[in-house]
């Protein structure tokens, strides 16, 4: 199958293409989640210091990674939309935002559940936690701003700028534990360095990350398909597709 990227950047041809991809990503999500949770909660050994509570990590860390990664992807799409004036880029950015916000919320929430037994506090205002909270506000701000402006093109431009401005927060979150002394511990897994955890634990965490990744792709494709239908409802190909569906049903 030869992919013609230019052809795929038009909503009319991306819509059926996304539809064909979704089932694969759903299957991958389910398989990887089951494998990751089994490995993390059954196979992985107890931690020498934190006992069983450290297992929150298998949800917390992948969610936190995804929250930052999705923001960067969203910023790239928003930038593309601003520069190239492509409709699909904006739709991708708006489709990514709710999932990013959800992962940010999960990271904060599971972090609180981890912090209480380990640190002795649900929440502290250290640099890592505060910057991650700002990320949640950025996601919410982006979605609200986009929803508040009626004209979709102006909405895309204004909210796209907000996303691009907020992108400076991502390196701050990532490096906060290095730049300042924080209550949050440093990174266990980073580039060019042996991970500071047992092999099975690392495996479970990476599989969970992949599972979250597949979930994100599946759900974003679903959302972007809805978005395409809504925006292009006046166009010929959508009308034809509806007519076809009605004919089948």
């Amino acid at each position: 199958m030869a992919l013609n990227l230019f052809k795929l950047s038009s909503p009319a041809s991306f819509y059926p293409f996304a539809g064909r991809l979704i089932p694969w990503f759903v299957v991958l999500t389910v398989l990887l989640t089951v494998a990751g949770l089994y490995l993390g909660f059954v196979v992985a050994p107890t931690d020498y210091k934190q006992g069983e509570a450290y297992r929150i990590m298998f949800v917390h860390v992948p969610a936190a990674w995804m929250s930052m990664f999705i923001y960067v992807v969203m910023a790239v799409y928003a930038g593309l939309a601003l520069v190239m004036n492509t409709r699909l880029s904006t739709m991708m950015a708006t489709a990514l935002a709710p999932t990013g916000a959800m992962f940010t919320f999960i990271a904060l929430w599971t972090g609180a559940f981890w912090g209480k037994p380990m640190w002795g506090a649900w929440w502290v205002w250290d640099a890592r936690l505060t910057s991650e909270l700002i990320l949640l506000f950025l996601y919410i701000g982006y979605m609200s701003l986009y929803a508040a402006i009626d004209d979709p093109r102006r909405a895309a431009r204004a909210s796209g700028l907000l996303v691009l401005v907020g992108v400076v927060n991502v390196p701050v979150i990532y490096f906060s534990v290095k730049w300042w002394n924080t209550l949050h511990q440093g990174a266990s897994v980073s580039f060019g360095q042996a991970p500071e955890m047992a092999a099975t634990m690392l495996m479970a965490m990476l599989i969970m990350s992949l599972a979250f990744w597949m979930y994100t792709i599946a759900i974003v494709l679903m959302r972007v398909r809805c978005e395409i239908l809504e925006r292009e409802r006046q166009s010929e190909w959508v009308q034809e597709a509806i007519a076809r569906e009605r004919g089948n049903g």
Partner: protein
Amino acid sequence: MKPRQKRLAMVAIGLVGLGIAATLVLRAFNSNLVFFFSPTQVVAKEAPTEGDFRLGGLVETGSLQREDDGLTVHFTVTDTAVTIPVTYTGILPDLFREGEGVVAQGRLGPDGIFRAEEVLAKHDEKYMPPEVADALAKAKDVNAQMAGKVAEGSL
């Protein structure tokens, strides 16, 4: 330049400018973004002398003493260079142990004793099963013994 390239340049310049601005702001705020002060910083008077601040470091091994009421504890916090004595009344978090990281919030008394109102445990980024931790500790002991023997010249 085409309009598209112009927009790309504007976005790029905007992002670079924003990055520089953010770096400058964060540098200026550096001392306020610090969650805790180390004993060395406290002795160097970098921590606020009036009012509360957080003191962070390791609980010195062998320094933990409990009073008879069962709630009041005394320990010293060290960064291996300077130590500061701390007293605290209350429940300690599970991970609070000698030789482990701790962050205490409170104020420094004129007698040089830090009176904590809240004690948080700080754990590191290492995760491993207990057996591995034991094996590592043993290996460290053996290494230390070997080093001692080499120093004595008996090996």
